[in-house]
Structures are given as C-alpha cells and as structure tokens.
C-alpha cells in the first residue's frame, strides 16, 4: 500500500488564550483522530518539528551556505508531519479532512511517497 506524508502547516500563532478546558477539548479531537487511524492500521508515524526555523543549507560558489530558518518572520511554518498508509490520494485526503489541525487555522499538504519498486 502506498504511503502518504501529511505535512501540517500552521501560522505560528498565539495559543495562550486557550483555557484548560479548551486545551482538553482540542486534545480530545486530536487523539480521537489519531486513534481512529491507528485502529484502522493506517498510522505509520508522526513527529512534531521544533519551533525554530531550523537551518537552510545551500551551495554557493562551491561553498556550503548555512542560514537560520526564518521562523520568527515566517507567516507559516511546518508544525509537524504524519505518515499514513492509504490506498490512493482520495483516501489520504479523506483522512486529512478529519484532522483537527484544519479547525485551528492550519492547512495540510498531502504528498505520496515514491518508493523505488522492489526487485
């Protein structure tokens, strides 16, 4: 079965106004979504990315150039990713639609991995 990677983009916004009760509710939504994919055997893995811009590495005139990522100024960043098994794009998109990330001002980039055929 093909694997899809869901890249969760978000605006580095301020969550500080959420009350504990709202925090709980949002967790509930995320865990419900995660549990469902896990129960269906489609969850492969996930990771949160650190909230700084990381490093951008490029080559300039034969020399590696490393700059800090533009987290602070960025309008949006990648918050993290999920890897799932899905039959096709339709299914992967359908799964993404259920992700609470969309409710909280985020958007999701769905990409199919392109493995080298075995053998």
């Amino acid at each position, binding site marked *: 079965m093909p694997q899809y990677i869901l890249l969760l983009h978000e605006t580095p916004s301020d*969550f500080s106004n959420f*009350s*504990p*009760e709202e925090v709980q509710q949002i967790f509930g939504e995320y865990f419900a979504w995660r549990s469902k994919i896990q129960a269906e055997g489609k969850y492969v893995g996930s990771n949160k990315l650190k909230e700084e811009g990381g490093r951008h590495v490029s080559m300039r005139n034969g020399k590696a150039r490393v700059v800090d990522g533009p987290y602070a100024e960025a309008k949006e960043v990648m918050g993290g990713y999920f890897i799932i098994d899905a039959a096709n794009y339709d299914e992967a998109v359908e799964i993404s639609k259920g992700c609470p990330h969309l409710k909280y001002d985020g958007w999701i980039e769905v990409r199919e991995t392109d493995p080298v055929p075995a053998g």
Partner: protein
Amino acid sequence: MASESSDHIYQSVDHLFRRRAGQLIATLTRIFGIERLDQVEDAVQDAMVRALRLWPYQGAPDNPTAWLIQVAKNRMLDQLRRESRLTETTDEIEIPIGGEADAAFANEVHDDQLRMIFTCCHPLIPEDGQIALTLKTVGGFSVSEIARAFLARGPSVTKTIVRAKQRLREFEIKLEMPTPDKLPSRLESVLKVVYLMFNEGYSALEGEELVRTDLCHEAIRLGELLAGHPVAGAPKVHALAALLLFQAARLTARCDAAGELLLLSEQDRSLWDRAMIKRGLYQLRRSASGDEVSDYHLEAEIASCHTLAESFESTDWPRVLDCYEELLNRKPSPVVALNRIVALAKVRGVEAGLVELEQIAEDRTLRNYYPFYATRGELLREAGRNNEAIECYRYAHNLTSSEPIRRFVMKRITDLSRER
C-alpha cells in the same frame, strides 16, 4: 514516550486539564512563593500550550502531570535566572513528582490545594474576589468561564481577580494553612466560599448550563477535599459536603425532556444520582460526631429529607419544618421564612401556610422576590383559589427575567385559566 493507553484518558476523563491546572498552580506557588502567583499562572498556561503543540504528534506522556509540572517549573526557573535573582544552583530545586497513583504525591497535591484555598479565601479579600480567585487558581477555571457562570463580563471578573491579588500583596498574606487557633474562624470563610460557589451554580437558572454544573462539581470537590483533611475536616465540613452532594444528586432531574423546569414534586426520582446520594450519606454520618449543630448541619438535614424520601408525599415534612424553624431562630431571613412556610403548609395545611405568608408579606426584601409570589401562587392553587393564584403567578412572571422560570409560571397561568 508515547503511550497509547494514556491517550484515551483525554477523551474519557472530564475536566482533567482544568483539574491539572489547579494542581499545578497550587504546587508551583508553594515552591516559588505566593508573590509569584501571576508568573506561576503564566508558566502553567505555557506548559499547557506546549503540550497542546507536542502531544498530538507524540501521544501523551505516561505521566502527564509530571511532564506538565516539569515544563512549567523550567519556565519559572528560566524567568528567575533572567531576573538574575538566583544563581545557577537553582537547578537543584527538586520537585517531587510521583506517579499518578502515588498516594504520598496525591496527599501532597491535596495539601497544596488546601493551602491555596485558605489563602484565596482570606477574610481580608472581598468575598467576590475570594470566589473568583479560588476558581481560577484552585479550580483551573478561565476568566471567561467564571464570567459565564456568574453572568458577569470577562473584564469585570479580571478586575475582581486583580483586586484580590492586590490584597494578597498589600497584606502580605502568606500561602499557608492557618494555625490551629485561627483555623476555626478561617474555616468559616472557606466554607462560605464553597457554599456560595455551589449556590451560584445551582440556583442561577440562566447562563450556560454546562459551566454552572461544573461550578457545582468543583464546589463538591473542594468540600470533599476539606472534609478529608485531618484538621480542617470538622463535623460542619462534612455537613456542608453532605448538603452539596444531596442537592447535586437531584441536578439531573430538574428539567424534563424538553428542558422545562420541574418542581421537586414533579421530578422523576429514579433519575437522581444514587452514587452521589451514597457519598452524601457517608458525609452526613461523619458530620454527626461532635456537639456542634451548624447551619450546614440543618441544611444538610433538610436536603437529606428531600433526597432520601421515596416520594414527595412521604417526605418527612415535620422534620423539615423543625430544621427551618431552627434556622430561622438563628438567622432571621425572609428567604428562610418563606421556605419554612412551604414545609409548614405540608404539615399543617395550605390555609395555615397562606395565613403565615400574609404575615411575612410586609417584609421589604420579599416585595420584589419572585419566589414569594410563586410560592403563594402554588398554595392558592392547591387551595382551589385559582383567580388569586393567577394573580400571584403574574406578579412572579413580572419580577423575574429568568426565561425558564417565566415559562414555568406562564404554564401555570395557562393551565389555571383553562380550569376557570
């Protein structure tokens, strides 16, 4: 490490985060001092937000409380370092973190919370400030939730809390349990806050149902917490806890399927919360030790009569009447007088009740008190004096802005008009 088993608790346990927030604030305030309460609150908020960003990807940690407390503690230490009031050795501040089921840790958390309650309910803080501060720092309620529960606006709740914190600073109120000689008087104000907190959730019929029920349950939690404390747990604390539990046990039956208000006589008693009644009985038994019969004892007794009766008719009305008479002797109040008459009408008849109502009708406090007219309406209706009853219900209708009550009274008027 991610643990699948701990994930589901966030879906099944009510108000876990609200409770955690209260625990965290109490514990960290003990460690860093009451003068840093604002910073502690911010640090706890930060820890929750951090969890909110991280846990959806990684799953919840095995010991979420320990995780949250560690993150919040680190925030505090970072800040203190920035203020450069502390040297690097602050790293060694050890915070004991037990497992979720660790009894010693649980006790410690309880003690932290009790200290916090006594501090928030210090008599030098105005009463509304005591309640708001307790809900915010011990209960983990947000300002907007408190505002919703009290039908207040957010900014005014914020002001109340700011004023309460000013008092804490001005009078250098310490975060500590009162000494044994001061405990009894300090306990009074704590119990009053718990009592008012419950009543606010229980009696107000407007506002958001959910958050008001939460207020009742938080009051019960604090009541039981106090009752369980070896020193604070005086008989009257058990009485208060019993009272709240008996009242709350009936919450589920207060409305019919359409959401319309039901009188005690109309409620389906099979809907009452048996488990809660059992807890109430346990507290009632424990309240019986000692000689003191507090007001809470009397109110708990009344509540138990209502809650333990098989039916409305079989309620021990003479006992209820006795308790109200005793309460009235202690603190003459038109509201208690009105409740006494309801019981009296059951014991000595509707006409006797109506006669006594006439006698208290002159009281100015009752002139604009809709329950007075609603009660009089009920008694007149039972006496078959329908026209006068309708008159009273109209009065009651005009005096209240509560929609559920207006609908209830309107229905009575319609029913009686049909009988005419």
